[in-house]
């Protein structure tokens, strides 16, 4: 804070003297800028491949020498026999994940916020973070031990649930439930801190008016965290199509793969698996662009909604 008042950024003029004066700062940052350009900006330039026919053989050519195909790669991707199902899976898994994930995290945060056994609350919270820090490979290994045919859950309940061997949208639910199990505790943190920011006086006033705990939750806590929920929802809608290939691939198996395939995985499959770099890049680019558009739309809707609701 003090630093901010002192600075008074008088716009500095460029001079070689200044560069010399700040040579240590330059030495300490330019290597990282070079790193940034190589590893983050060069791949962005790679988007040009989405409009070209790029194969392993033509990859070495410069951008200007490759065959330009316009939107050909996009049409190819959209008419792919796997595309429709992949899109459905991506949207299905994603929407279900956002819905289940948000609701469960909020419910868990509400419960943590309400319980009055302090030590027990802390213990539960600590344990709930644990799966967040464990790798997806480990989670998949455990999930398959628990959910596979004849696995732990089948043995425990003495039934055949076939959770990991039913090639239907049931797999979306399974993936989302595993995700909730892994991330619920972690995701609840942000809602808990939002709840901590609610004016305690409101609760006191409601108590005086004779409102029970459930009523206080409904009329004070939930409205109190509404802004946080909306912001997080907007951000997650923006990444609707970005379902990570890692999780899908690790939890999938030969039987359910049709319903595990998502866009990022599909992009890898076509781009690297089938050696069609152009199509692979086009799928990735489509995914990014839709994300940005969705983000803008939802943000707009939330703005309209928020205004009409607040006033």
């Amino acid at each position, binding site marked *: 804070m003090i630093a901010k008042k002192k600075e008074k*950024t008088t716009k500095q003029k460029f001079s070689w003297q200044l560069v010399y004066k700040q040579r240590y700062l330059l030495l300490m940052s330019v290597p990282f800028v070079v790193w940034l350009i190589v590893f983050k900006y060069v791949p962005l330039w790679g988007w040009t491949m989405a409009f070209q026919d790029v194969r392993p053989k033509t990859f070495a050519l410069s951008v200007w020498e490759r065959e330009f195909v316009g939107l050909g790669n996009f049409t190819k991707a959209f008419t792919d026999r796997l595309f429709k199902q992949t899109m459905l899976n991506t949207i299905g898994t994603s929407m279900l994940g956002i819905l289940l994930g948000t609701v469960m995290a909020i419910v868990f945060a509400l419960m943590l916020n309400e319980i009055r056994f302090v030590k027990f609350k802390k213990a539960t919270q600590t344990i709930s973070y644990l799966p967040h820090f464990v790798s997806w490979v480990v989670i998949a*290994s455990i999930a398959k031990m628990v959910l596979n045919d004849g696995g732990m859950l089948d043995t425990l309940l003495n039934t055949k649930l076939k959770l990991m061997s039913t090639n239907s949208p049931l797999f979306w639910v399974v993936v989302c439930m595993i995700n909730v199990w892994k991330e619920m505790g972690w995701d609840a943190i942000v809602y808990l801190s939002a709840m901590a920011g609610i004016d305690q006086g409101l609760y006191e006033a409601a108590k005086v008016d004779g409102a029970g705990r459930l009523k206080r939750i409904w009329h004070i806590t939930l409205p109190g965290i509404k802004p946080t929920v909306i912001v997080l929802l907007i951000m997650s809608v923006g990444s609707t199509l970005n379902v990570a290939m890692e999780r899908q691939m690790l939890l999938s198996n030969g039987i359910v793969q049709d319903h595990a395939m998502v866009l990022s995985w599909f992009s890898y499959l076509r781009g690297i698996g089938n050696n069609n770099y152009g199509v692979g890049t086009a799928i990735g680019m489509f995914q990014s662009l839709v994300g940005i558009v969705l983000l803008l739309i939802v943000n707009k809707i939330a703005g309209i909604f928020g205004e009409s609701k607040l006033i």
Partner: protein
Amino acid sequence: MKGSRVKSRDDILDWILLVVFVFLIIITLYPFLNVLAISFNDPIDTMRNINMVIPRQFTTSNYVYIFKENNLIAPLLLSVLRTVLGAGLGVICTAMLAYVLSRKDFYFNKVFTLLFVVTMYVSGGLIPEYLLLMRTLGLGNNFLVYIIPGLIWVYNVILVRSFIEGLPIALQEAARVDGANDFIIWGRIILPLCKPVLATVGLFVAVGQWNAFMDTYLYAKELPTLQYVLYQIMETATIKVDPHAAEQMKNAVSPLSVRMAITIVATVPILLVYPFLQKYFVGGMTVGAVKD
């Protein structure tokens, strides 16, 4: 009258929550305990019923097998190496860049900050990145692919920068009067003061490195890490719990038991740093909140 009824109903809520929490703790921990039990249980006995919390027939043969026959030593060392190197280098580079970007008098501050922040929102995507690393730079099956591309997380840089901006500027001024250059100020004054936030960053990067799987899968299958070995076993060994098979393969090892042992080996380091993660991540998250 009405007040007391509300009160007693409110107290019931506490007990309901208690029961729900016990249930949540069980469903969180039970699978881990089950894995642990299987990893220490006799593989043939496991095939009869995999549901257990305590090993029924205790044995260390699964662990002996993975370290002797399956040669888990090399992947384990590789995982440790990338974790230590990745976190160590990552912390130093993050701290250095964060310090420069915290210096408002630095001529290129705004441009550099913008360049870094933009990459948090747009990325080239999987295929261009793959082609860059594998084709253009030829980093395939090179250990550097584990360290260099993920060297700096922009989010961490912002975290450390906000922390540095919160430090009293007088310290830097004093050192400058004494004739210290920017590099010395960074190393002698900023770094020691940043220990708490750097511990947070280091732990996060270390956990990310230890847990990383996709980079091995995509770029370096010949340099398998622990996570990748676990994946391979999961893919090759289809686990069918068949009691007849169990009798046929006396003395053999069951893929499930081996897998569970490796699962434990891959999880234990996380459990070891877990108390520190707990302590630091809350701090780290609050630091981030101060600035933005």
